[in-house]
C-alpha cells in the first residue's frame, strides 16, 4: 500500500462535501455527550470538599485548569491544520485553523479570567507579571493577532497560507508556556497532573478535574466542527453569489465578482 494512496484516501475523507455530511451526523451526538459530561463534571466538582490549604477555592481549578489546557491544545490543533494547509494545500485545513482561532481566544480568556479570580484570594492580587501568566497573555495576543490578520486579507486562500506560516512560527510559544514554571521560579503552581513521573494530585480532586477537562475538550470539538461547517457554508454562499452575479451580468471577460 503506497503512501500516495493513503494520502488520497485521507483527502477524500476530508473533502468539504463529505465533511458536511459527516458533521451533520456526528454533531447531535457530540453535543449530547458534551452536555452529559458537563453535568457530571459540575456535579462532581460541587460534591467534593475543599482543600485544606486553598479552601473551597480549589473548585476554581475545575474550570481554570481545563481551560488553560485547551488554550494550548487549540493552538496545537491550529498548528496541525497549518501543516495541512502548507503541505497538502487542503481547503478544509484552511477552514480548520481559521475557525479555531476565535475558539482558542475564548478559552484563553476563560483561563486568564478564572486564573486572576483565583489569584486574588490565593496570592492577594489579581495579576502579577510572572512567566506563566504573561506567556498565557501573550498567547491570547497571538490569537487576536491571527484573527486580525485573517480579517485584514480578503483572499481567503492567501490569508489561510500566511496565517498558517505565522501559526507554525508562533508555535514556539507553547513549550514556553508549558515549561515556564520550571524555568523561572514563580508564584504559579508547577505542573502536577501532566508531568514526568505521574500525577501528584489527590485522587479526590483528580476525578472531577479530569471529567471537566474531558467536557471542555468535547465542547471544543463540538464547537469547532460546527464552526467549520458554518465557514464552509459561508464560502459556498459567496461562491454561488458570485456565480449568480456573473450570470446576470453576462459580460464575459470584462467583469469580476467578489463578494465581501
Amino acid at each position: 500500500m503506497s503512501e500516495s494512496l493513503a494520502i488520497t484516501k485521507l483527502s477524500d475523507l476530508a473533502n468539504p462535501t463529505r465533511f458536511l455530511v459527516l458533521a451533520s451526523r456526528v454533531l447531535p451526538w457530540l453535543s449530547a455527550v458534551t452536555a452529559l459530561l458537563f453535568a457530571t463534571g459540575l456535579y462532581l466538582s460541587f460534591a467534593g470538599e475543599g482543600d485544606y490549604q486553598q479552601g473551597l477555592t480549589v473548585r476554581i481549578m475545575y474550570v481554570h485548569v481545563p481551560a488553560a489546557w485547551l488554550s494550548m491544545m487549540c493552538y496545537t490543533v491550529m498548528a496541525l491544520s497549518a501543516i495541512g494547509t502548507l503541505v497538502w494545500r487542503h481547503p478544509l485545513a484552511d477552514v480548520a485553523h481559521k475557525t479555531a482561532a476565535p475558539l482558542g481566544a475564548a478559552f484563553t480568556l476563560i483561563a486568564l479570567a478564572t486564573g486572576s479570580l483565583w489569584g486574588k484570594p490565593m496570592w492577594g492580587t489579581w495579576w502579577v507579571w510572572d512567566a506563566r501568566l504573561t506567556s498565557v497573555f501573550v498567547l491570547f495576543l497571538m490569537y487576536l493577532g491571527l484573527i486580525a490578520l485573517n480579517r485584514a486579507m480578503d483572499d481567503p486562500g492567501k490569508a489561510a497560507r500566511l496565517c498558517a506560516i505565522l501559526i507554525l512560527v508562533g508555535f514556539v510559544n507553547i513549550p514556553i508556556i508549558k515549561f515556564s514554571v520550571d524555568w523561572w521560579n514563580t508564584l504559579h503552581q508547577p505542573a502536577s497532573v501532566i508531568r514526568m513521573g505521574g500525577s501528584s494530585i489527590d485522587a479526590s480532586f483528580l476525578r472531577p478535574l479530569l471529567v471537566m477537562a474531558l467536557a471542555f475538550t468535547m465542547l471544543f470539538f463540538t464547537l469547532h466542527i460546527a464552526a467549520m461547517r458554518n465557514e464552509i457554508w459561508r464560502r459556498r454562499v459567496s461562491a454561488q453569489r458570485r456565480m449568480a452575479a456573473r450570470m446576470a451580468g453576462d459580460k464575459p471577460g470584462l467583469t469580476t465578482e467578489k463578494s465581501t
Partner: protein
Amino acid sequence: MAALLLRDLKLSVRAGGGALIGVLFFITVVAVIPFGVGPDLNLLSRIGPAIVWIGALLSALLGLDRMFQTDREDGSLDLMLMQEHPLVLTVLVKCLAHWIGNGLPLVIASPLLGLFMNMDEVAIGATMLTLLVGTPALTFIGAVGAAVAVTLPRGGLLVSILVLPLAVPVLIFGVSASYAAVEDPAPFLPPFLILVAITMFFAVLGPLGAALALRNADD
C-alpha cells in the same frame, strides 16, 4: 472635507491599520515591559505613566510617515493640491482623521493598560487626560515630517531629525504632568497647561508647515 475625513477613516479601518490593531499593539508593547523590568509591582506602577506615554509615542510614529506618502504614490495628492479648498484645511482634516483612527483608540485603551501597570486611579486618570491632550500634537508634528518626507526623494534623514526632537517636549510634559498628579509636592497644572499650549501651537504650525512643504513638492 467630510468626504476626505470619511475616506481616511475608512482606509485606516480597512486594511491592517485600524483602531483594533493600534490598541493591540499598544497592549503588546506594555505587556512586554514587565518581562524586562521584572515583576516588581511597585516599580511598575512608578514607571507606568512613562511607559504608557512611550507606547503612545511609538504607535504614533509607526503610522505617521505614510500619512501623505500613499496619497502621493497613487497620485491623489496631485488632485488634492489642485482643489480650491485651502490646502491647510485639507492637511488639517487629514491630521484629524489620522488622530481619530490612530490616536483616540490609544487614549481610550490607556486605562486598561494603567491597570496592567498597577497604577492607581488618579495616575490613570491623569495619564489618560494628558494623552488626550498631547497625542494630537504628535500627529501635527508628524504631519510636517511626513510632508517633508514626501517632497524630498533623498530627504529621509531630515525627517527623523525633524520629528523626534519636536516630539520630545510633548512626551516630557505629558509624562511630568501625569506624575505631578500623583506626587504631592509637584503641581499638576503648570506642565499640563504647557502641554495644552504645545498642542495648540502645533495645531496651527503643523498644518501650515505641512501645507507649505507640500506646495513646494513640485515634481
